[in-house]
């Protein structure tokens, strides 16, 4: 083989290898970058809470759509409204660019003492239409949160100004009503926009 032919062969070989590499990359399924997918999605426990209209919220309420579930309280001035706004922005972006059926936003109050259904309704509506505000009796709330590994604790304080420490993760519940993935705090719109379509297409 002449030197000229050898050079041509090397160039063609390199181009073929590069093409195979690119094709392999393109065929790879997209990878989650932020969410932790639960290996065996976990059915929600038996519990009964209430939505903002006073209707019962049970495990069945979470069937039929994807849900992004955050545990917080309306008297929380920083991380709760920040997280809900991030979820609202992510939902809007997903609806604009990726998904017709973007997940529902669910706020479960870890302060049932103060968060009445009416208050929950006005609060979640502020972050968009179709959001679900869940509150109810403390023992039912505890039954729900314990099964999902969600922690909350009322902190001692004078009068009504107490705070509540709480898990800051966002849980993803699939249309079968199963806890299927988790986003850890701190949250960012881009994390949800990247990973939610992957989670939802894999279901």
């Amino acid at each position, binding site marked *: 083989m002449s030197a000229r032919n050898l050079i041509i062969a090397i160039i063609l070989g390199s181009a073929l290898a590069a093409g195979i590499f690119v094709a392999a990359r393109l065929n790879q399924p997209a990878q989650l970058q932020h969410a932790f997918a639960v290996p065996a999605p976990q059915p929600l426990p038996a519990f009964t809470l209430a939505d903002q209209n006073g209707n019962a919220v049970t495990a069945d309420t979470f069937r039929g759509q994807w849900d992004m579930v955050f545990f917080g309280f*309306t*008297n*929380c*001035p*920083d*991380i709760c*409204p*920040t997280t809900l*706004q*991030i979820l609202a*922005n992510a939902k809007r972006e997903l609806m604009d660019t990726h998904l017709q059926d973007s997940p529902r936003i669910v706020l479960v109050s870890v302060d049932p003492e103060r968060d009445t259904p*009416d*208050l929950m309704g*006005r*609060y979640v*509506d*502020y*972050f968009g239409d179709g959001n679900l505000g869940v509150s109810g009796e403390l023992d039912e709330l505890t039954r729900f949160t314990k099964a999902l590994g969600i*922690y909350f604790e009322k*902190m001692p304080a004078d009068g009504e100004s107490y*705070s509540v*420490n*709480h*898990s*800051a*993760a966002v849980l993803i519940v699939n249309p079968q009503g199963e806890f299927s993935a988790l986003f*850890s*705090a*701190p949250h960012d719109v881009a994390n949800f926009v990247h990973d939610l379509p992957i989670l939802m297409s894999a279901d």
Partner: protein
Amino acid sequence: MPTLRMRMPVFVLSGILFAACNGESDAPLVASDVVISEPPPGRAMSAGYLTLRNNTDDVIRISGVDSPQFGFVEIHETRLDDGVASMILVPELLIPAKSSVSLQPGGKHLMLMRPIGTPQNISLSFYDDDILLLNLQAAMTRRDN
């Protein structure tokens, strides 16, 4: 050390008048990116976020903030420990020389409590004890971070 200030007259005890409006970029202490987020319906507390720039060669200490539109204002910090969010009072905020400190969502922030009426334009004063460091004005805005 006072960390909670009710509305009170301003007494400038220092010979150096630090007070400046947020538009004066060469002032000793300058505020930028000020956001006072309106509370969601049914809630009274607002959160405030901003960046404070110390243009001096010394540390600036902020030990109190007040506003005529609120009963009291405190600096708080949201902390994340093992995925659990909690909030603590920040009794004083130190801004190193020639440096900036940002108060932002999910971190240190202003807590504006007990609003007087439904304020839309907010005045804030920052102090080191009784020394007025900075006055600023900002409109209450809808949260969109």
